[in-house]
């Protein structure tokens, strides 16, 4: 839409020789405007938080175990945010991830499922949440891609519906996980690092490859950038969007497994408001909310910034309400900075 309002840029383009002229003096701006710059800003923000943490809380903060705590805390929202990055890059939104995660913990911790898992294999408790998440994503995808319902509304309905279903199934009771195989796996350490962090790392790396190196990622970016042009170029837009929502549901399922492991319980309240944290992390990370540009590295940094912030506040015994205010400020500042970089970068390219 915006391109139509900027005929100057379109006209300025073919002036020969002018382009090189413009690029040289603004090389620094171009670097800052590029992906390096956006991530650089996030890295700086993270370093600042780490310094604040070290100064205010000293060794309690600057400790390997505390850092592992920060990342472990980030891992569940992190996994969901990776899926969310795809959805937002494709020009959509998924508000249902938190309640789908809750639903998946409830279904996986049902007495019947746990009994079956005990009789067969604890892997069943891995498969069930994945299936629940993917199925919810499939429903979202069908409604959005083939029913032409706005993603915001379709996933809002799923948010409410999945939460209700989880309450109904569990009778609003907390279901304790008793399957030892499952608990041993999810609560284990590998090379001194908790399994939850390994899962986050694997999902993030897989997500990065998927977004940047595969046809799936290219389609996601293309559709988010211009769905109509993608359709007319022969890309099966509906089918792809469906798959993006399945992917998002699938990551919510993975997060469900992690939640079950961390809390050793399934309940319908798991994941409440997680969707907002995930969206905030993705957007702060530099993925465009209107679609067409996504960054997994940015998302990971965004998640880490928020969990480090939480940790700094906790280590200093500060009120969670103050923490919420700080989060809000970070979101606003990050988006403002992004816009500044984005316009500088764009101006450097255009003029």
């Amino acid at each position, binding site marked *: 839409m915006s*391109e*139509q*309002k900027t*005929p*100057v*840029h*379109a*006209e*300025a*383009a*073919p*002036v020969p020789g*002018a*382009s090189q*002229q*413009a690029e040289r*003096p*603004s090389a620094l701006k171009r670097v800052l405007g590029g992906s390096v710059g956006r991530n650089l800003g996030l890295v700086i923000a993270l370093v600042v938080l780490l310094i604040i943490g070290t100064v205010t809380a000293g060794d309690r903060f600057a400790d390997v175990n505390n850092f592992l705590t920060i990342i472990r805390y980030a891992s569940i929202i992190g996994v969901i945010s990776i899926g969310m990055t795809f959805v937002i890059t494709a020009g959509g939104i998924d508000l249902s991830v938190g309640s789908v995660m809750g639903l998946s913990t409830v279904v996986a911790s049902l007495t019947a499922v746990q009994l079956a898992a005990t009789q067969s294999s604890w892997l069943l408790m891995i498969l069930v949440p994945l299936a629940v998440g993917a199925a919810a994503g499939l429903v979202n995808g069908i409604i959005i891609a083939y029913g032409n319902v706005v993603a915001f509304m379709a996933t809002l309905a799923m948010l409410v519906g999945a939460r209700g279903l989880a309450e109904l199934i569990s009778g609003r009771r907390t279901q304790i996980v008793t399957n030892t195989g499952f608990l041993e796996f999810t609560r284990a350490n590998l090379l001194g690092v908790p399994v939850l962090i390994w899962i986050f790392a694997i999902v993030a790396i897989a997500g990065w490859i998927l977004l940047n*190196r*595969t*046809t*799936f*990622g*290219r389609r996601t*970016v*293309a559709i988010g*950038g*211009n769905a*109509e*042009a*993608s*359709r*007319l*170029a*022969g*890309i*099966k837009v509906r089918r792809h969007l469906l798959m993006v929502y399945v992917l998002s549901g699938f990551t919510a399922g993975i997060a469900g497994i992690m939640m079950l492991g961390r809390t050793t319980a399934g309940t319908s309240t798991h994941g409440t408001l997680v969707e907002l944290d995930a969206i905030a992390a993705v957007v702060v990370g530099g993925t465009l909310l209107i679609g*067409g*540009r996504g960054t997994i590295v940015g998302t990971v940094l965004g998640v880490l910034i928020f969990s480090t912030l939480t940790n700094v506040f906790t280590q200093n015994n500060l009120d969670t309400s103050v923490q919420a205010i700080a989060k809000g400020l970070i979101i606003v500042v990050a988006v403002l900075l992004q816009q500044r970089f984005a316009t500088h970068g764009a*101006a*450097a*390219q*255009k*003029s």
Partner: protein
Amino acid sequence: MIDDDHAAPLLEVRGITKTFAGVQALKGVNLTVRAGEVHCVLGQNGAGKSTLIKTLAGVHQPDSGEILWRGEAVTIAHPVAALDLGIATMYQELDVVDGLTIAENIFLGHEHSTGGLLKVSQANRITRELLSRLGHGDIPASTEVGQLSAANKQIVSMARALSRDTRLIIMDEPSAVLDSGEVANLFRVIRELTSSGIAVVYISHRLEEIRQIGDRISVIKDGRSTASGLAVSETPTPELIRLMTGRDVANVFPDAVPVPASAPILLEVDHLNLRGHFSDVHFTVRAGEIVGLAGLVGSGRSEILETIYGARKATSGTVSVQGKPLHAGSVSSAVGAGMGFSPEERKSQGLILDEPIFKNVTLSTFSRFSRAGFLNEGAEKVAAREQINALELRPADPERPARTLSGGNQQKILLARWLVHGTRVLLLDEPTRGVDVGARAEIYALIRRLAAEGTAIVVVSSEIEEVLGLSDRVLVISDGNVLAETNAGDIDESGVLDLVMKGSAA
């Protein structure tokens, strides 16, 4: 119509310059506009027309040079200052608010009110007067602007200009969004305005329009005036093209290459129908042949192309490529069969503007370069670079975002996309819309070359001259019906219009 030469000009622009971030957009532009004239400003894309307009509208400040308004030097510091002087600007992308009524739009920013309460009935009354002055008294003032056609939105924009004491209206390519009937009405309104002493600065690169409506012409090339205040009637077209492009354009359309009767039929459209748009369209295109669809806006020509391509689902009838019927309503089936489509709205339907050239070029083929789902961007860039060189696409940098390219080069991206794809059947909707005169000839030559290499091509254009000049065969279309099919050489523009008029009368 034109004032006596000795009268002080309404607006005089003397040697203004403007630099943006190291790029000199204006390097010395002169413009003298007299009251009551239509002064055309001509220039290719990138010549600096838009910058000039924005300088006059108070959006940009010139770095040097002066602007005289009714004989006095003025500084137009901001858009409201321009309006206060009496300079109104109608931008190409009309700045009307769709959700408001016509009256609300007209008084936007200078509402009549008492104590904060709007005087709605007064606004509506004045709006009605303005609309009837513009020959559109039939549109109710309370109509929501979003429901109006592009032509009527322009009328609203003009009425807004007239609601103030406007002496000069700048129109930036006003005809770009209009069909020929609407253009005729626009011209009638412009004559009405000038007869009451208002001056119009008319920006366009359609020479034929300038011939019809313009009194005098100023030409800009690369940010510099190459001619100022030439009388339209005394300046031949080749001279204007030379002033605009700096070179002579002898023959715009390339010579047709005769298609042998033995050439295989690549595209067969068999009794295709789309309810509410067109009925019973059937024709064939051989390898190497260019078939043009000629007709006015709304005749169904674009819909026919889109339906052939599967972007719309046909009500009945079939489309076959090399004898194999396609699935109705499936773009991927068409693309898979070797069909390509360059849509009318290049920016919104064809390109991903913020993505680099090479990704736009391989948008239909990137999976072909991939292995097991993994992209091979290196191979994509090689393929894109090949086409960049073959089509002389500029800038020749595959990493450049498509947004930064001119209209002609953006069109080349789309052609490159289908060349990489190996398209045998190419559908082109308005291939030169927004492409300046110099680059058009290049696009025409490319299309002809593709045909010569054995591609079957279908072209739609709102410029009948273009359809006739480019095609081997022409289908004349009106109201969704094919009125005639003829060799392009056997019919001229007035012949097409005659058929269309008769067809719609029948």
